[in-house]
């Protein structure tokens, strides 16, 4: 078993008085692709915000490369090689496609990803590099968001709901591109509502339900019944 790159121990998360996560234990190994599934409001996005440092956590709840990152700011977490493709793409509207990608490289980490490598992966972005990012189609915007995260040359990349709001044909294209993206020893966490897509690209899966881990297993062995029970909470 390779060494875990990211670990969460009894992670709680709160928005004011509302508690969104209850004692979540989770780990991602080096080079592993992990899927996190769960219905709306199960706490998937909150978990992403906790990991990336957009939500501040109690000490020693999250370790990354054996370092406690629980109380770091989001930019400090990013500097350590953890990148996110946020839900809804969230490109910078005032920046061109090329500039959006350049912002991703701001952390200054060395690695295989550069503007050229991203253009090679998504040739359409090379054609559109000087356009405002908002003038692109949804699928192309998603490519920019993925490219922007890759430009950071991360060790671990988080994909938050990358299929949301996209046409099925586009989703297929993006998922087809994923293995090529995640190769090269990068680990990934894929958060998805589309369960079959999530299972098809991951090796292990966690299911969240009302802020708790309701299922954990290998993606190719979990049964449909287990998943629906963990997903909907039906006995």
């Amino acid at each position, binding site marked *: 078993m390779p060494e875990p790159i990211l670990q969460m121990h009894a992670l709680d998360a709160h928005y004011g008085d509302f508690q969104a996560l209850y004692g979540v234990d989770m780990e991602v190994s080096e080079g592993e692709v992990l899927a996190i599934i769960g219905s709306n409001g199960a706490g998937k996005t909150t978990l992403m915000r906790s990991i990336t440092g957009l939500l501040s956590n109690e000490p020693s709840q999250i370790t990354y490369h054996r370092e406690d990152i629980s109380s770091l700011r989001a930019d400090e977490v990013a500097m350590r090689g953890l990148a996110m493709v946020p839900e809804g793409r969230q490109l*910078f509207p005032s920046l061109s496609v090329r500039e959006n990608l350049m912002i991703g490289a701001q952390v200054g980490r060395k690695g295989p990803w550069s503007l050229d490598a991203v253009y090679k992966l998504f040739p359409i972005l090379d054609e559109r590099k000087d356009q405002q990012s908002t003038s692109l189609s949804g699928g192309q915007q998603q490519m920019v968001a993925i490219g922007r995260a890759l430009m950071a040359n991360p060790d671990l990349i988080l994909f938050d709901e990358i299929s949301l709001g996209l046409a099925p044909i586009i989703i297929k294209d993006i998922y087809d591109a994923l293995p090529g993206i995640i190769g090269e020893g990068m680990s990934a966490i894929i958060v998805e509502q589309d369960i079959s897509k999530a299972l098809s690209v991951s090796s292990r899966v966690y299911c969240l339900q009302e802020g708790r881990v309701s299922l954990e297993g290998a993606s190719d062995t979990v049964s449909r019944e287990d998943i629906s029970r963990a997903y909907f909470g039906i006995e």
Partner: protein
Amino acid sequence: MDWLNAVVQGTLLGGLYALFAAGLSLIFGVMRLVNIGHGDFIVLAAYLGLTVTTATGLHPLLALIVVVPTMGVIGYVLQRGLLNQTLGDDLLPPLLVTFGLSVILQNGLLEVYSADPQKMEAGALETASFAVGGLNLGVLPVLTFAVAVAVIWGLQWTFYHTALGRAFRAVSDNQDIAQLMGLNRRHIFGVAMALALGVTAIAGILLGIRTSFDPSIGGGRLIFGFEAVIIGGLGNLWGTLAGGVILGVAQTVGAKIDPGWQILSGHLAFLFILAIRPNGLFPRISA
């Protein structure tokens, strides 16, 4: 010819107003902060210039070498130490805190420099002029206008052609996502304020060479700066220059009709443009 003269002089005066406004426009664009103390920072820069010139005997324009970095450092420290804590979803805290800063600055300047009007000695530059096609142009107003164009060009270039400008725009668009990309918004805001007060230093020195100043005049400079920003449209620096020019021309043409109308006609031009184009003439940020 008199009218043409009024328009030309007003245009040149507009350069000074654009310099008042550029810092305001910059920090509003990057962090949505309205700095009520901006005019008092202009006056502070003028006094710093006065201190440097009297202590060292330097020409006021050379004093910029000291005053611009000093104001920049003040800006960075102020942003990191105080103003960052006021930023959030609510617009009111930064307004109140910068209003408080304005009061503190005015009283501090009053304490240190007294209420007597002061002026910086710039020698021949103050009165030098040259004739162009029957018009007499002062060297100082022409220089001020040229500096304003250069400063705005420089800020615009920084915004659209450097990594810093990219960071400014990214943070302005979406602070959380910018943070995810490794940009520390607190530092970026500090740099933006340093840049804004650096420009303010230039404005303050040129003001102090042009006219006499005392600790109470900051409020008036703030209004002119605001009006130039609003006329030009929020978030557009070239628009801010245009706004300054429109305000300057309105004032000199008003003064030509009746010397008592100078300030009033500037405000009327501002109100008129606000009435027909509430977002200003060239807005980049939609309201």
